[in-house]
């Protein structure tokens, strides 16, 4: 009984459709700029290393692609340590 109610009201976060959307988002972003999925890690490491040489970083910096239409931008967020 609960199973079917869950199915009726679920917002399908685990559906194969949402998996397909997630995978496509990643793969299309990389296809468009001609990069590999490894790039993100490399970027994160190198950017952090560069910033850390000059200012103290606090917490975990984040590097993301953001897409608008068919255009892509790099979104870098680096929390800095306050005094």
């Amino acid at each position, binding site marked *: 009984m609960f199973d079917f109610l869950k199915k009726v009201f679920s917002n*399908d976060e685990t559906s*194969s*459709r949402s998996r397909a959307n997630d995978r496509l988002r990643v793969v*299309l972003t990389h296809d468009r700029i001609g990069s590999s999925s490894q790039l993100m890690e490399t970027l994160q490491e190198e950017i952090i290393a560069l910033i850390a040489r000059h200012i103290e970083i606090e917490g975990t910096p984040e590097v993301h692609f953001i897409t608008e239409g068919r255009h892509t931008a790099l979104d870098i967020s680096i929390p800095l340590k306050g005094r």
Partner: protein
Amino acid sequence: MEKKNSDSQVIVVTSGKGGVGKTTTVANVSTGLAKLGYSVVVMDLDIGLKKLDLILGLENRVIYDIIQVVEGECTLKQALVKDKRFPALYMLPAAQTRNKDDITTDQVLAVCNELKPDFDFILIDCPAGIEQGFRNSIAAADKAIVVTNPEVSAVRDADRIIGMLESANFKDIKLLINRLRPDMVRSGDMLSIEDLMEHLCIELLGVVPEDSGVVISTNRGEPIILNDRSSAAQAFNNVVHRLLGKEVEFMNIEQDSFWSKLKRNLGFKH
């Protein structure tokens, strides 16, 4: 042949991935346009792997092909095959025993320019892939229809093709979603129209639902657009009207009510 308009539109139908329905689209859209009285020629550039003659049911009428035209073995007029049903529809066949490198972009351009005075629409059936055959197919076109299926591999290839068309300075690129299964979208097992629009970000030209009638019409060599009762035919008709600049509402194929959702999950067929 009587032309309706003074200028001609050259439209390439392309997809990247094979088997998504390019040839079916070309056959149905061209038949639909010819049915409305426009003079139309379809150019099969899938050299070595031709299908368009079969889909249109014209395989027994083919005498010459486009390679023989560019090599001077026959004239363009001799190679054009007249459709059985509509006198305004012609097909320029591909060669089956040659390959994509046997014709250059300049030669395709020259053939297109020779066709323009006689036709309102020139539709180009582009081969799968991004090689010479694709470059030949887009060279002469000023509009593109990108055909895709609601499936990750087809969407990825469509995205690549759209990127290549944009680099080639195409301003008019439209999306045709083929073989959508509304029941699967509703149950969360297929990418929806909205999903595809979000990923590909180009204007939507049409959505053709999966329809077993397409196989049957292919078997017979009669484009499904001639079968008024089929949903695919209705979808292709809408595509034809949108190409002609008319505003046609999109069919509500994905919509589902609460009750049918409930019934489906209780095990009833809708």
